[in-house]
C-alpha cells in the first residue's frame, strides 16, 4: 500500500504536462489582382508575293513564301468575342492599272480560322472565337490569274484588326 502514492503522482504529472495547449496567432491579408483587356497579333511575314505565271497552266497562284503564321493573343471578358479581320486599302495597283482585291482569296487553318475573299470595302473575318487565350493559325493566299490583266507589278496593303468585346 505505501508504494501506491508515488505511482499515482507520476501519472498525474505526465497528464498535466501533455495537456499544455497549443497556441496560435492569425492575421488576414487580401490579395487583389487586376487583369486588363489586352490584344496582340503577330504575323510571320509582313509581305507576300505572287510570282508571274501562265494563266492556262496556273489559274490560281499561291503566294510565296507560303502560309503566313498568325499568333493571336487576347484578353477579354468571360464569354467575350475575339475577332480578327482583314481589309485591303484598295485594289491591286500598277500605275493606272488595277486588279480588284476580290481576286485574292485565302485558306485558313487552325481552330476559329476561316477561309475568305479579300475586300477593299468590308473587313473580312479571318478568325473568331470566344474568351481569352492564345490562338494560332495560318493563312495561305491565292491570286486568280487571268489573261485580261495588264502587265505590271501590282501591290496593295492589307490591314489586320484584332478586337475583343
Amino acid at each position, binding site marked *: 500500500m505505501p508504494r501506491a502514492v508515488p505511482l499515482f*503522482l507520476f501519472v498525474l504529472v505526465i497528464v498535466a504536462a501533455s495537456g499544455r495547449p497549443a497556441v496560435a496567432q*492569425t492575421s*488576414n491579408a*487580401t*490579395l487583389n*489582382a487586376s*487583369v*486588363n483587356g489586352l490584344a496582340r497579333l503577330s504575323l510571320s511575314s509582313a509581305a507576300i508575293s505572287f510570282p508571274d505565271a501562265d494563266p492556262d497552266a496556273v489559274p490560281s497562284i499561291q503566294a510565296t513564301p507560303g502560309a503566313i503564321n498568325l499568333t493571336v493573343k487576347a484578353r477579354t471578358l468571360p464569354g467575350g468575342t475575339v475577332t480578327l479581320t482583314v481589309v485591303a486599302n484598295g485594289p491591286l495597283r500598277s500605275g493606272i492599272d488595277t486588279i480588284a482585291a476580290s481576286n485574292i482569296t485565302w485558306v485558313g487553318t487552325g481552330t476559329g480560322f476561316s477561309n475568305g475573299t479579300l475586300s477593299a470595302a468590308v473587313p473580312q473575318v479571318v478568325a473568331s472565337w470566344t474568351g*481569352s487565350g492564345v490562338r494560332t493559325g495560318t493563312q495561305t493566299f491565292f491570286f486568280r490569274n487571268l489573261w485580261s490583266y495588264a502587265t505590271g507589278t501590282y501591290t496593295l496593303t492589307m490591314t489586320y484588326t484584332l478586337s475583343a468585346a
Partner: protein
Amino acid sequence: MKAFVTMLALTCVSSTALAQQLDLSLSTAVVTFPGSDPDTVPLVSAAPVQVTYRVRQNNRATWSLTILGAGDLISGPSRIDITNVTWVATPAPPFQNGTLSKTVAQRIASGTGNVNPSTIGSITFRLANSWTYSTGTYTQTVLFTLTAP
C-alpha cells in the same frame, strides 16, 4: 496526503504559466498585383509584405508560420487558381519560398525555441501572368497563422 495535493497543484500552475506567447502582424492587409502584359511581365510581383513575429516561452519546441488561401482568386464568374500565386520570402532560414494552396496550409517559416525580440521577415507574392485570364479585378483572402509547438 496533504503533501500530495500541494505538489499536484504546483505542477498544474507551472504548466499554465509556461504557455507560449506568440505575436504576429503584417505591414499591410492588402496585397495588390498590378495589371501587366503576360509577354513582358510573365510573373507579376506585388509590393513586399513585412511580417513581424515573436515567439516567447517556447523553450525548445518548434514554431511555424503558415499561409492558407480561402479559395481561388475570384472576379464574378471568373477564377484564377490560387496555385498561380507563389512567394519569395527572406531571410532563409527561417523563411522559405512556396506556392499558395486553398486546401493545405503552406509553411512560410519555421524554427525552434524563442524568437525574441520581434523579428521581421519579408514576403513578396508573385502571380503567374497568363493570356488565358478573363479581364476583371480578382480578390481572395489569405490567412497567416503562427503556431507553437
